[in-house]
């Protein structure tokens, strides 16, 4: 396999998930899925991609998250063991993530292609309040026996202030990359809805979490931890992977001088916190393996939920198709009743004449036939007269083209009116209405004209073929033809002989020959008519099927697919829905550790 193929796959999957997220944000009732999709895209870029690329497990990442003012920067300082992050009272001061790189890694930053997705790395040091899609990396001073020497610690922006909508995507990106998440909650914040929901998302994604409660009075610590466990930890959702129960560390409200000396006076609070983190990552390889496998599981579960994202669109597409199908049915109904029911297929009358002609005697027999015809003349005249008076003129039939054109117009008007009526229900109908304004009707009419021409060609072929069937059969089978000819002439001769013999000597009674010969002829004609009409009826039955196959079915398919063609969002949605589950399956296979 091409070594770069998986990168292409990763990028495609991340793009597709990002597109789906965007799609969800546009629909109010889908907004709940947006955060999950965002996280899924970030996991694809930052965890699955590097894993498929065979990137090393080190460094591990620890992301420090929490509500505004909860004390994230203080916790970062405690993790690192020195004052490195700006802690200040302005809520929502930090607006982009900052990574603190242990000295041991030197300049080795995991600069995998697509890593951290849309975030750019800042070249120079900037204040944390810079509100752009960037991140910065600060190198830490070397320290002897640093417990978190394998960890890059991320200081993240908050998710609670009203400005956070602009930068929560940066937070997601860093949470995705994390092998361990440190969830910071203050005595004011620990039971807040927004951070708790975010914690739920992190847990669902299978990230191991250490909780750190801050700012309470030292005396209240135990009670507060207990309350936090009861109110928040007891109500966590299920996770995709196996993650340990959430440990809780605390940093109470301590004087500034202690806060500014985490390695010294603050060690009392720092050590338990570090121990909790180290307990979650006994070895880098194990921690990273868990990160990757949970990311894959999360993507797989997200893949199951994708249909939910598209359900409403697909239902609406089904509605559109059923409207198209109803229009098709009406078209076919009109074709049958307005055109087919009244169509006589005169071509078959010619066939009848032709067959009767073939049954006449050839060669010298012609004179016999002519003689008999002469005898039958009076009967022919009488019959002609009676038929003329008795037969009603048939109502004039509309031409096939006129009926089809009218039916097509009605079909399109139905679709347009329906789209206008349902305009407020779903963007799909708006799209159709715009389509009608922008030439959908002309396109459909062109296609219709094209298919109608094709249908007419087929019809002519079929008509010709079926009308020629009987004469051709006779012509190709001289034995049968001659047998029939012989039989007919034999019947005529037999009747004449019978009358002559029975009514000998000659008298006026011999005129009975005229009706007798006419009767045999009439029988022959009835038989021929029955045979030819059978062909006519068969054609009529087939004609409806042919029109459906050549005209209405392709048109209905084209119209039914119209909303999902021409670069519309529905087309993209369908393509993405087809692609994403496959991509997830393939990437999952790629990141499985080799046995």
């Amino acid at each position, binding site marked *: 396999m091409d070594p770069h193929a998986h990168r292409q796959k990763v990028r495609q999957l991340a793009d597709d998930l990002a597109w789906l997220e965007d799609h969800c944000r546009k629909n109010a009732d889908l907004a709940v899925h947006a955060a999950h999709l965002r996280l899924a895209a970030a996991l694809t870029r930052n965890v699955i991609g590097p894993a498929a690329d065979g990137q090393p497990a080190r460094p591990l990442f620890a992301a420090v998250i929490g509500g505004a003012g909860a004390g994230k920067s203080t916790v970062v300082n405690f993790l690192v063991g020195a004052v490195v992050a700006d802690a200040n009272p*302005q809520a929502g001061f930090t607006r982009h993530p900052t990574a603190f790189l242990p000295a041991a890694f030197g300049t080795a930053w995991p600069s995998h292609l697509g890593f951290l997705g849309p975030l750019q790395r800042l070249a120079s040091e900037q204040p944390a309040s810079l509100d752009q899609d960037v991140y910065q990396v600060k190198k830490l001073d070397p320290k002897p026996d640093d417990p978190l020497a394998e960890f890059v610690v991320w200081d993240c922006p908050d998710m609670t202030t*009203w400005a956070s909508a602009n930068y929560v995507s940066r937070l997601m990106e860093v949470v995705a990359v994390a092998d361990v998440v440190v969830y910071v909650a203050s005595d004011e914040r620990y039971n*807040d809805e*927004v951070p708790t929901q975010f914690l739920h998302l992190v847990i669902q994604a299978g990230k191991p979490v250490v909780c750190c409660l801050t700012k309470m009075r030292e005396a209240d610590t135990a009670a507060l931890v207990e309350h936090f466990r009861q109110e928040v930890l007891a109500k966590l959702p299920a996770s995709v992977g196996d993650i340990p129960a959430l440990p809780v560390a605390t940093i109470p409200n301590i004087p500034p001088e202690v806060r500014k000396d985490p390695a010294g006076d603050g060690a009392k609070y720092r050590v338990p916190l570090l121990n909790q983190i180290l307990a979650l990552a006994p070895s880098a390889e194990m921690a990273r393996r868990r990160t990757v496998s949970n990311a894959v599981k999360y993507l797989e579960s997200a893949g199951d939920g994708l249909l939910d994202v598209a359900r409403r669109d697909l239902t609406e597409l089904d509605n559109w198709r059923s409207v198209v199908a109803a229009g098709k049915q009406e078209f076919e109904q009109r074709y049958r009743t307005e055109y087919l029911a009244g169509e006589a297929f005169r071509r078959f009358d010619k066939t009848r004449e032709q067959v009767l002609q073939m049954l006449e005697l050839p060669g010298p027999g012609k004179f016999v036939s002519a003689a008999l015809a002469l005898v039958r003349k009076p009967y022919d005249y009488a019959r002609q007269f009676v038929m003329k008076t008795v037969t009603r003129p048939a109502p004039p039939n509309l031409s096939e083209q006129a009926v089809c054109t009218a039916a097509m117009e009605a079909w399109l008007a139905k679709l347009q*009116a329906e789209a206008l009526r349902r305009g407020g229900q779903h963007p799909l109908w708006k799209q159709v209405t715009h389509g009608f304004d922008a030439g959908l009707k002309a396109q459909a009419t062109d296609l219709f004209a094209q298919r109608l021409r094709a249908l007419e060609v087929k019809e002519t072929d079929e008509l010709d073929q079926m009308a020629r069937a009987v004469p051709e059969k006779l012509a190709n089978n001289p034995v049968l033809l001659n047998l029939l000819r012989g039989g007919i002439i034999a019947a005529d001769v037999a009747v004449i002989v019978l009358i002559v013999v029975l009514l000998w000597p000659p008298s006026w009674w011999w005129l009975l020959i005229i009706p007798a010969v006419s009767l045999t002829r009439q029988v022959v004609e009835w038989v021929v008519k029955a045979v030819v009409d059978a062909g006519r009826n068969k054609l009529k039955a087939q004609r409806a099927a042919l029109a459906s196959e050549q005209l209405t079915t392709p048109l209905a398919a084209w119209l039914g697919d119209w909303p999902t063609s021409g670069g519309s969002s529905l087309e993209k949605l369908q393509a993405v829905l087809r692609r994403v589950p496959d991509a997830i399956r393939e990437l999952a296979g790629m990141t499985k550790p080799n046995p």
Partner: protein
Amino acid sequence: MSIDPQQPFLRTLAPLLRGLEKQLRTWLDGRRLYPVTMVQRAEIEGLADDLKRKADALDVDRPLLVVMLMGGTGVGKSTLMNALAGASVAQASFTRPTTRDPVVYFHNTVKPDRLDPALRLCRFAQHDREPLVQKVIVDTPDVDSNDLANRDKLKELLPVADVVLYVGSQEKYHDQLGWELFKEQRQRRAFAFVLNKWDRCVDAEKGLRPDADLLRDLKAEGFENPRLFRTTAQLWVDAERNGEAVPKGLPDGEQFRELRDWLEAGLTRLEIEAVKARGVGQLIAQAEAVIESVKPPDLSPQAAKVRTAWEAVLADEAAAQADVLISTLEPYQQEVEHHFSVRGQQNFWGLTAGYLRATTKMKYLGSTLRDKLPGVPRLGSKVETPDDWNLTEFVQNCSRTAGERVLTQRLSALANRLLVEADQKGFPLPLLSDRTTDTTKLDWEQRFTRGLIESLTEVENEVTHPVGWRKWVRGGLTLFANALPPVVLLGSIALVLYQLFVNTEPPSLAMMLLPVYATLATLVFVHVLIMVFLPVRWASIREQFRGRLQTKLEDELTRAYLPIPDEVAAAVREEKRQAEGLAKETRQVAEWVDEREQAAHVAELYGK
């Protein structure tokens, strides 16, 4: 209008507001064609509720000012309340969320039943502090904890508030949930701001100090000079417990005292009235805006355009339908001709009549036999001809056949075409859709039948009773045809008698049959004349018939469809008029309130 401070201004406002509320509700309950969205409806319902509440609250001598604390859990609302009360009236603790039951703090001379119903279910804390006699302070549950029921409780209470005290802490002053609620409510109530836990805000090394940050945000929201109090309520509560008048170690710029003074002395009667009036004014302004937004447009110009467009479509349709109906009559052309011949011959009598009847019978023998002969294929049911034929039944057959074959489908297609046309002319489709579709479901078969019968009868009348020169031709010919054969018969008999008896010629067969020949020849001659001058041919009847039928159908279609856009437009116009009336009354009340609002300086409690 000059304002007399002694005049019970607010009290007079109450009935006005009640009247407005009633009108809003009547308007809501009315049946209307033009759609009102769910959001608009909910908004109007909310406004009506608020108006009623305000009216009830104002209908007293000295209205109460409700000051409500609002903010996230843990920012210190209850602590602030306790500090203001100088006693533990609200429960304050380190567990979040603390306050689940709101606390209402009011003067002991105020009877609880004077409080708004939403407040009566809360916990009461009464006091005897004279400066606060007209004020009710309410501590509320949080806006942001995991306990969503708290948020619902708060939202039920908020409509009661005249002044909202937005309480933030260093952590939460910037939080989205509280800020959104503030933005949602700021149009309706006065806002003052408290930044509690001020001690945690002062040690800013980098970034803005929280109060500066908050002031900047408020400025962006239109609060140029808001009332912001920086407090550390916990210290004041602790001091109270320890029996100190002023706590020790207050951080710089602590303003709890200012807050208390403002609540006690800053909000005078004039200010209270102004706040109340402003609240009413904002409510009414909002009502005006909503009414303006639900006011339907005038659809008359579009209706006229739709009418013109529909006329053309309906004329097309009538022509097409006439063609279809005529083509179903085609098989019966012999019967129709026969019928017309018989009708046309009713003016003849005597010999001519007998001769014509006989020839007609001969001529149409075949068509009369059709339905009697076995084995001849029939179209529809049997048709009785000539004299006793059942026109109605015959025509019903035709229109049923036509309906089944073509017309039903054409009609539903017609409705769609009309709707598309209307949309292109800019008429809102939902208003037309139902009525147009319903019209398609009328009994059209019966209308087709009626049209066919009427046109047949008219054509028949025209043929049998012509007008103008035709009438004279017909009259003359009838007279001639009726008179000539008897004259010829009598004349030829006279001639034969004359020959026999006067000229005494020997009788011969030829001579004896002369009257018969002569009369017959005359009859044939007369017949030829009739056929030439009074023709009854299907081809000509057909055209006449088609023309009339088309007119009739066009009339029917026009009568059914064409009034729809105009009627809808008229109904919508009436709705517009109602909405305008409502808006006008609202405006009058608004103007009345406006003057009172300006009486005191409370502008800083409201943004722009």
